[in-house]
């Protein structure tokens, strides 16, 4: 069974998955740049993580190397840690000014 499956993942499949993952990454990037809601900005970084995970699994499948999927596990870890910390910070910021608008916190970058 494994024999057949291994032969079906050609370069063409890899290229399709890579194009999909790059499009998702770029959509996440554009979203991060255009949205002004702090939480949605963090959601967009999660989208970029997702795109990276697809590329990892696709390459792992192409080489039959399972380090790709192991890296997706680590991506999940980092995403979970990032979500916990970032959301805690957002809650802190929200308590101060009752707004999620990133422009209202412009002085943080000065």
């Amino acid at each position, binding site marked *: *069974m*494994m*024999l057949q499956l*291994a*032969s*079906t*993942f*050609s*370069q*063409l*499949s*890899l*290229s*399709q*998955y*890579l*194009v*999909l993952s*790059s*499009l*998702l*990454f770029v*959509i996440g*990037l*554009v979203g991060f*740049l*255009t*949205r002004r*809601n702090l*939480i*949605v900005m*963090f*959601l*967009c970084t999660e*989208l970029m993580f*997702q795109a990276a*995970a*697809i590329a990892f*699994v*696709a390459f792992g*499948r192409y*080489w039959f190397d399972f380090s790709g*999927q*192991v890296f997706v*596990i*680590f991506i*999940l870890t*980092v*995403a*979970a840690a990032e*979500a*916990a*910390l970032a*959301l*805690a910070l*957002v809650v*802190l910021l929200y308590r101060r000014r009752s*707004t*999620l*608008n990133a422009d209202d916190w412009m002085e943080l970058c000065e």
Partner: protein
Amino acid sequence: MDGLDPYIACLAGSFALYLLLRRGPLVMKLVGALLGLGTMGWLVVICSEVVPGEVDPARNVLFLVFATIAISAAVRMITHSRPVYAALYFVMVVMSSAGLFLLMEAEFMAFALIIVYAGAILITYMFVLMLAQQASEAEQIDEAPLYDRFAREPGAAVIVGLILAGTIVTASTTGLGQLPPPVDAATVNTANGALLEQLPNQYRDAVLAADPDLVWPPEGADSVPPIQWDADGPYVHVEGRDVRIDEEFMPSNTQHVGWSLVASFPASLEVAGVILLLAMFGAVVLARRQAEHSEDELRVDAGLKPVHTIEDEEGGA
């Protein structure tokens, strides 16, 4: 001119994204959506023309369905004015990428993605969103806040995206010909056999299922005999004869991932656990409400007498 096709497709896609992001009439957004769908179709055509190789038609159909859902949900996520809906659309992206993982035979990762991402991380996002939305939505129920309704400088952002997308898409279509060919069946077989030799119980089951009378592991041998392959499949040479092993005993994807995780990256696994623990501590410390303790309360807690008595406060006030 063939080399320019991916760039032109990315240009069209970026323009579609720009139409969807900027504020304008609904007709322009429809045009943008159609243009985006057309671009995705064109990219598929470019892939199949430029890159060598064949795909299973059934898998290809599933891939196209999941990819379309993923990209449309992602676009809707960054264009929707309500953050809660944006989070829900992201769940859709996660679901469709889990489907893509299933197509790539990464079953474990597919379900881990649904459990961890859609089940845990996104729920945290939803909680914080609902927590933060109470005040603003109590006043105007129908209207999202102004900063959620309009994109900030969509033109500049789309140009940045266009440059990045053009480069990566070109590299992963026309540039992919320089990549070495995919693994052949022999490499896959060797990898499967090598892992099966590391799993004593499963190896024993596989051999005994083929020949119940064998003594396994063979007496007097330091290590188990290696798995060999010929045109008919895997076999193992033991007690002077060849025992065929059924291929259903070959390690599954989950076993491969687990072995790779524990055998190749044990230290990283520990570090990942520490990162999660520290993130949890950090989140608890950050989000905790600071309770105000007066100096007297602290002194009483420590078993000392309060400095200020009640009479003092009344007199002082």
